């Protein structure tokens, strides 16, 4: 019963941008990501990868089709319900880190967990430090988030995505803004998470080497999935 293990299931997802002219950016996208799978999405620039990922992460609700998370239909949920879903089940790493500049690194990582409210403040802080340690950035935990390097920021963003132990982690070119050394570093972290922790990952990338190390590559072209490559 492979289907029962589906973390993400997309069914006939279509999206049209209306500005500046009607543009059918996603056409009939259907696919599944199973628990513990490490999937990468590749495709030419402008083929709709980011757009798809935003829809899958519930941050964009302007589409048609159906989206299931852990076999629960989330298309059509209220914004409040979607916020709760994002909080508990989805960790998102943007191409640009998007940390809250007013808060320290530690607070940035802790906020989603505090919002979830399942653990005490002490436990959350303990977990956050643990994640930061794992990503080798615990030494900047008390710094303001705008005072650390780009590579460190991206790792903080990953730590934030991990803190609530979500069902799936999505990344939109999470290494796109990093130099090769830092990006190798981040990619190594993802691999480690996939292999050692059995996390489910869905990562958009342009890096073929990286993609070859994932379980499956989804290739997109002009708003369609044209191929699944299992490896």
């Amino acid at each position, binding site marked *: 019963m492979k289907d029962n293990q589906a973390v993400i299931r997309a069914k006939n997802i279509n999206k049209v941008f209306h500005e500046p002219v009607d543009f059918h950016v996603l056409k009939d996208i259907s696919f599944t990501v199973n628990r513990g799978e490490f999937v990468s999405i590749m495709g030419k620039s402008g083929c709709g990868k980011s757009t798809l990922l*935003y829809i899958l*992460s519930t*941050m*964009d*609700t*302007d589409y048609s089709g159906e989206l299931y998370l852990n076999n629960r239909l989330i298309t059509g949920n209220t*914004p*409040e319900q979607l*916020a*709760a879903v*994002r*909080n*508990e089940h989805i960790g*998102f790493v*943007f191409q640009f880190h*998007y*940390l*809250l*500049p*007013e*808060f320290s690194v530690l*607070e940035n990582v802790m*906020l*989603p967990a*505090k*919002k*979830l*409210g399942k653990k005490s403040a002490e436990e959350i802080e303990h977990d956050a430090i643990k994640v930061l340690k794992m990503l080798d950035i615990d030494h900047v935990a008390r710094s303001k988030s705008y005072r650390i390097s780009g590579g460190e920021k991206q790792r903080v963003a990953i730590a*934030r995505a991990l803190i*609530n132990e979500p069902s799936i982690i999505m990344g939109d070119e999470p290494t796109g803004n990093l130099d090769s050394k830092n990006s190798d570093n981040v990619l190594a972290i993802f691999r480690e998470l996939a292999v050692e922790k059995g996390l489910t990952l869905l990562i958009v990338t342009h890096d073929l080497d990286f993609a070859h190390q994932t379980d499956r590559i989804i290739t997109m072209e002009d708003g369609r999935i044209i191929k699944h490559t299992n490896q």
Partner: protein
Amino acid sequence: MEYKLLLQIAKTHITTRLKQSAIAALGVTFGIATFIILVSFMTGLNGLLDGLMLDRTPHIHLYNEVAPSKKQPLDLATPTLGDWNIVRSIKPRQRPSRIHNALPLLKLLKDNPDILGATAQVSSQAFYTAGALELNGLVNGVNILEEARLFNIDDYIIEGDIKDLYQNENAIIIGAGIAQKLSIGIGDRIQLVSAQGNRITLKITGIYQSGLAEIDNIQSYTNIKTAQRLMGEKANFITDINIKLHDLEKAAPMAQQFARLYDVTAIDIGTANAQFDTGTTIRNIITYAVSITLLIVAGFGIYNILNMFIYEKMNDIAILKATGFSGNDVMYIFISQALIIGTLGGILGLVIGWSCSVLISHLPFETDALPTITTYPVNFDSSFYIIGITFALVSTFLAGYLPAKKAKGIDPVTILRGQ
């Protein structure tokens, strides 16, 4: 717990951007302080002007106008039997116009529950003489303590004490203009000559200054008995009764009622000071217009500053939403932020507004018209402060609420993509 987290986020936003927060708060402070200072000062001045007039003007003035009798002796002697009695060119009798039965009437008035007080006066034309000079004038015989209680005459006594006049039948308080023209002062003697030719000499115990030259140049005050003696009249001779009511609004109907009941001329304050009334109305309209304008301008200022403060935070809103905070959470964060800034700025505005008002109320303000006023009048009515802080809170609430409400419904990606 949840609200604590949201409040903590709001506080972090404020404290980490202290400069912008301070500017936003000072915008609130400035608006509220200006409102309070101007309104306090303007209504203070208005109150002073109104009070001036109302304090010294009787609400109802009773006297007897000199006029020919409506019923001539001929009408009384020959009751008309279809005939016309025509008397041409009737002239009123030359005699001082007294109020009939004044003392019982006065007692009746004092017992009336609507009346705060009533005082009798005896006023008479007289000449003041000191040395070779002779001045035309008006002597008012009064019960000086009652005049002070009801009409604040003591506010206009610039030298001497009203108690020196009370019970002293040989004392007089003269207008400042008389004192100056005759170059006499307290302790000097002045001779009064009445129209009837009676002559009395009185000792000056006080100087009176109303600020109106035409009054200060002629008016003087003595005891009722002194004035009666000057006129050669008995103790029941009273020319005027001045009435002060508990409720000013009743002046007009009561004046009509008195005129009908007691066969006197009764003038109420509204009739006597119609143009003053108009002035008050216009001043009040100006005050309201200015304060409403000020509040609106302040409100827009507050709204703009805070609105910008929050729009700069749109990115944070999107990030918070992306990581699982709901639209309501975001709204709560930004409304609390706005209200914290509004409360702090507003309270500071109240304090500064109040301090400046206190400062103004200690600035010297001297004018001949108001011998007892030495500093600018300021109205410390607490309702201005309540209006001010309410307004600050409402406008800051809206400044937080409206943009946050807009951000609430937007998908986080729409904001981030818009960068």
